[in-house]
């Protein structure tokens, strides 16, 4: 079977794969977030000051979104809607403090799709 592998196949070989992904900011912290009816669960609830990347996975059947609010209820970031089985990243720079995450689609937040979240000074301060 290998004997049939010709030079034409070999030409493909030389193709160089895509370049490595761009570097993230040094202070970027990933937070996995799962969504389903009607739960919203961040896998990490305390992160250091800086950029926070919410890696959202919608395990549910409905469409969901992710909204980040500060302690006063002001909206700091809002994602696009995530379809069932879909994923999305919402990146936002956050100062020290308490924040709230929710899904603002329909009445999903009232049904339970909300969670608290705290941003703290990194160890060693900054």
């Amino acid at each position, binding site marked *: *079977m*290998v*004997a*049939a*592998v*010709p*030079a034409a*196949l*070999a030409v*493909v*070989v*030389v*193709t*160089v*794969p895509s370049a*490595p*992904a761009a*570097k*993230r900011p040094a202070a970027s912290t*990933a*937070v*996995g977030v*799962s969504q389903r009816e009607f*739960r*919203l*669960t*961040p*896998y*990490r*609830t305390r992160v250091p000051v800086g950029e926070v990347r919410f*890696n959202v*996975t919608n*395990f549910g059947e409905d469409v969901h979104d992710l909204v980040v609010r500060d302690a006063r209820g002001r909206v700091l970031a809002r994602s696009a809607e995530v379809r069932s089985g879909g*994923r999305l990243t919402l990146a936002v720079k956050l100062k020290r403090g308490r924040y709230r995450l929710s899904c603002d689609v329909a009445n999903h937040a009232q049904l*339970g799709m*909300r*969670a*608290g979240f705290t941003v703290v000074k990194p160890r060693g301060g900054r």
Partner: protein
Amino acid sequence: MARRRSAPAPRAGTAARRPPRPAASAARRRGSSGWTEAHVHRLFWRAGFGATAAEARAWAARGRAATIDWIVDGPPGGTKLHGPAPRVDGRKLDPVNEWGHDQLWWLDRMVRSNRPLVEKMTLFWHDHFATSEQDTPRMLAQNRLFRSHALGGFRPLLKQVTRDPAMQLFLSLADSTKEHPNENYARELMELFTLGRGYSERDVREAARALTGYRSKWTNKGFQGIRYEAEEHDDGVKRILGRRGRFGVDQVLDLVCDHPRHAPFLVTKLWQFFVAAPPSPATVRALAATYRRSGLQVKPVVRQILEHPALYRNLAAPDLVKAPVVYIAGALRTTGSAITDNWPVWLSSTMGQQLFQPPSVAGWDWGPRWMSSNAVRQRFVLGNYVVNYGRPRVRRGAYKASLRPDRAVAIAIAAVGSPPVSAAERAALTRLARHWFDDIPKSWRDKADWRAESLQRTLRHLLIAGPGAQLC
């Protein structure tokens, strides 16, 4: 669930990284009692993710019994991961929070562990007790459960899986109450996990009653765990698999484990994981006897399969198709390459196997079904990555156009970890090398070293991703 795994092939070896020293005067290629490097390659691929050239040499010299002992029992000192931990984008893996890092984390264990059989069996249980669409921390916890019971007793594993939050939520066992018993778990318990057939709808319904009582607890901080609440359990009399009683959770699990159909069911599935040809009825009987005699221990059954002559049949013509993650982990392990980027995640997925996301509770379809047209293309793409970013990458200026074709092929084979290469494959590669410079005028050839580099890349790519590399 047509789940016959057919498959494949010999390739070279790898990664338990520090192979034992061969006995002083042992023959390099053939150890005692006809145990050769080809046997070692076959065993290491079936029971793990391939052998390095050094491992193949060393274990061929040590002999069959020592090699199988090492694979099954592991080295003294326990499980270790050899080499540096992977970094992606300059950072350590974050399996919980970064997409795909859960898969990279496990693939890395397949590549670097000195207990390849434990990782292989963890993969077996991941497929056997297929769970999907659950939060990453719970899937990772389930993965640890499978690993800790990889070669242990089936009964305790089943009891733990039944209580595992990822499984409970996936098959709606959590919150199945005496008022509203959910049959999902009871059905799969009999059909997919323990018996296959030989039970009735009534058995499923009655077992569902016996399995009631688990409640999930959620707060605004998310999932808080599963609790058994006796008041939610149906403690009435049930009739299950011909037995009558006030069965509870562990009793119904014992009923299916002790059922005459369980042993043949599980040993057949284990056999199909390691051997492409179906087992004979006599083999099933022998394996089932071992399984029962040991008190439903998995390790002696796996050992018996790994010792069976059928596993080593036709070493020159492998017939078991490497599953995508086995293929990827094996390509990295046998070439001495490491995980440095996310590409194994999307390649594995596009080849048809995304870890922690089996397509259904029945798991994946193994065997030739892995080789769809797109999957084959992606398997070829894998070779690009390994040749460009892995250890087999070609150094600039290291090769001359004047290199003899057979020597060029030998260099390429050594560079990818000295996998077993059939005579036909070697001849085809040598032919390719011989004609590689045909389009260049002879007078230019002494300045065509750059073409020698592209020849090396091509040969290495074909050794990693060609037809011979897809089977073990």
